[in-house]
């Protein structure tokens, strides 16, 4: 019973949805304020979500009905499941096992794949181009992200997020070593969430709304929710991996600290999307492979050296 509560209510689905909707509001409000305007009211993401649930679902005739319907549900499921393995406060996630880090990374790749599938099976031109761009972009940011997360895991000598938390709790200040990888993680997360400057797959002025062009109503609501949750889960992952400090605090303060970390990361992402122009797909891929990936490997090198000569 408790497990079910944990999974569905707190800190599972319901809590996660609420935080995600608030995170979307936070992001949009901050974006608006950075642009010197007022921005949406606090309930805006919720209103958008409910409104979309209440709207007509239009499925294009040419679309593959089953894949078209399933893609958003897959996306939503994957991100919610991923959340269960991330420790929020303290050192333990709801579930954990010795390889959960890899599973989480894998689950976080699924939304991008569903964007591709959803776009591809819409059989619309803009959706198809958006879908192909999603996948192209995936290859650019995913490897740097994996490598960046590999670095702290190597240091902690484990593939489990919870065990990593234990390690960094035992060795405070070690997380400072991984700051370079944290930067790489932030950039990769921008790509994962398809935000400016990496919002190429849904570049409005080029391909309308990319993969989501044909989605409407309920299915669009699921997709939007999945992206919101992905943002929170991604930020939580970065917070857990790269900012593991203050883990021994009492639950309530620890929880607040966790939220502060997550929203700080979301704020940085919002700042990024305010001050940059969208790159082209070729520029994006070039940037990721020329700069981001080598920097991530540099971090690995540093950690290897430290591990061999200093930490043991």
């Amino acid at each position, binding site marked *: 019973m408790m497990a079910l509560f944990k999974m569905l209510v707190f800190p599972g689905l319901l809590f996660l949805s609420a935080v995600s909707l608030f995170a979307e509001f936070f992001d949009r409000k901050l974006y608006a304020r950075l*642009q010197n305007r007022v921005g949406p009211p606090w309930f805006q993401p919720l209103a958008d979500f409910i409104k979309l649930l209440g709207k007509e679902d239009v499925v294009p005739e*040419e679309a593959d009905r089953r894949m078209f319907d399933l893609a958003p549900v897959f996306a939503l499921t994957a991100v919610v499941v991923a959340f269960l393995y991330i420790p929020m406060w303290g050192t333990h996630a709801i579930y954990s096992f010795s390889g959960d880090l890899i599973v989480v990374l894998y689950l976080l790749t699924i939304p991008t794949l569903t964007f591709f599938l959803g776009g591809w099976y819409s059989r619309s*031109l*803009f959706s*198809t*181009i958006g879908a192909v761009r999603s996948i192209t972009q995936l290859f650019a940011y995913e490897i740097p992200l994996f490598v960046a997360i590999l670095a702290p895991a190597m240091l902690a000598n484990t593939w489990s997020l919870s065990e990593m938390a234990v390690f960094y709790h035992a060795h405070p200040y070690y997380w400072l070593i991984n700051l370079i990888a944290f930067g790489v993680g932030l950039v990769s997360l921008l790509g994962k969430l398809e935000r400016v*400057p990496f919002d190429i797959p849904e570049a409005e*002025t080029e391909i309308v709304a990319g993969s989501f*062009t044909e989605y409407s109503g309920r299915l669009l609501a699921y997709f939007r929710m999945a992206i919101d949750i992905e943002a929170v889960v991604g930020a939580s992952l970065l917070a857990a991996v790269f900012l593991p400090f203050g883990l021994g605090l009492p639950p309530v303060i620890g929880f607040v600290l966790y939220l502060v970390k997550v929203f700080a990361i979301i704020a940085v992402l919002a700042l990024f999307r305010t001050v940059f122009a969208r*790159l082209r797909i070729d520029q994006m891929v070039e940037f990721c492979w020329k700069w981001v990936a080598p920097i991530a490997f540099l971090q690995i090198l540093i950690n290897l050296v430290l591990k061999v000569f200093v930490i043991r």
Partner: protein
Amino acid sequence: MSDTENVKSKLEAKFDFLKDKVLLQRERRLWAEVPYDKFMEVFDHAVKQLGFAFLNTITGLDAGADLEYIYHLAQAEGTMLNLKTKQSKDKPIKTITGYFPSGIIYERELVDLLGAKIDTLPPGIRYPLPDDWPDNQYPLRKDWNADVLDKNVGGKMEGENLNITVGPNYMKEPSDFSIAHTNDVTIPIGPQHPALKEPESFSVALRGEKIAAIQLRLGYNHRGIEKGAEQRSYIQDVYLIERICGICSHSHSTAYVQAVEEIAGLAVPKRAQYIRTIIGELERVHSHLLWLGVAGHEIGFDTLLMYSWRDRESVMDILALITGNRVNYGMNLIGGVRRDITKEEIDQTLKVIDKLEEQTKYYIQLALEEVTLIQRLSGVGTLTTDDVLRLGAVGPTARASSVPRDVRRDDPYAAYGEIPFKVITDNHNDVYGRTIVRMLELMEAYGMIRFALNNLPDGPISVRAPRKIPAGEAISRYEAPRGEDVHYVRSNGTENPERVKVRAPTLANTQAVSKMLEDRYLADLPIVVAAIDPCFSCTDRSISVVSLDNEERKTMTWKQLRDYSVDWYKKQGVDFSKMKRSSF
């Protein structure tokens, strides 16, 4: 002897039948009527020997049994030669696209609106009339009546499943999109598309992310203003023509009233001239700030849109304060302006200008330094100086390719002869250069507004204009924010004009778009199109096709057309047979 007189005497010396027939209307305006059998000779001489290297437009008129054509040619120094000729309605005239590739749209317009027959017009899609326009109906003919049209018929549906088709077969009409290779994906951009604030339709054949071919269908905004202007009085026309375009409304109405004033011989008071100039420059400020924001939006930089439009609001406030409306100011009147500028308004304007100048300096800094901005603008949409001269681009598009074409200096109107300013040029040849040109023009405009406000002459703001304008004709040029705007007006002594012809700057610039997009990415399309600051409501025409790849055209008719166009482009120095298929 002035330059204009020089041209006149040269022309009269060369051709006997033009002896004492070249009319010098005023400084920089020459008119000559040539019988059609001699026309090409005179045209050739004017273009090749006398340096009339820019075709402003071609005006067509219905003259009973004949059609009258007026070719408006311009020299870099500002002199305009208007060559008139007449040809019977059922006899063809020769195309001049060999001299001016950009002339193709003006000729298409003659074909559609007047039923002119043009000898071997290069292939392309129709403009500016709808696809389902009935045959043999030419709206600009005097005996034509709109009653023949079915009130409830719109354009035909082209591409039934706009958003839900894959494959190159979408473009069923107006012309088969057969330039594209069969493996390409053809995507429609427009008429409703987030990158376009106005309806026009691009069909873009994509190979991977690269643009293989592009075709543009305009005319979604074609309303028939030129015909409407003939049916209304001069007073009503001021408001109708103002609404050709909401962004450069003052440009159009000023160009129009200037032409009418020239025919009527009205001496517009100095103060009115200055006020027109001030409004014109304020309009340039609002238009360039608007452009900066739109350009930012096209490359996903919405913050730039938000900030530049926030600052633009202060110009809008000033315009609303002075003219009484935010857009479509209604400031012009035949014979002057409708409202005076008061002392308080001057003070307030000066204050706003100072503030905007600060802000613009920041934007210039930003454009010079922000790395993602430079990445997206630099090297994109390249148009060399030669291309500009060949395709007849105008305004900031031309000036960013080192072509100092600016009517305000070359052919001053209103108070521009008395206000000091620099013509801004840049040698980047790309979208980045166009951004710099516009930003620096903003700085110039602030200076001009300040000068005009501080030196505003006293006196009346208008003279009384008659309702009936005496018979005559005039052509008026105006440097709109987007480039040169040309209005030709002919009057016949009644309350309604005989003919009003408008050549909007975007029409001249659309010619360059296909060229700029050659071998670029799809992602560059929005910004390249935005970079000419398009105003298709001004234009409502359609343009030609430039293709990178024309192998494997199968049908015979197309083969014919192809051979023709290959030859035709060869003459322009483009040889398709030597071009390689671009690969991604």
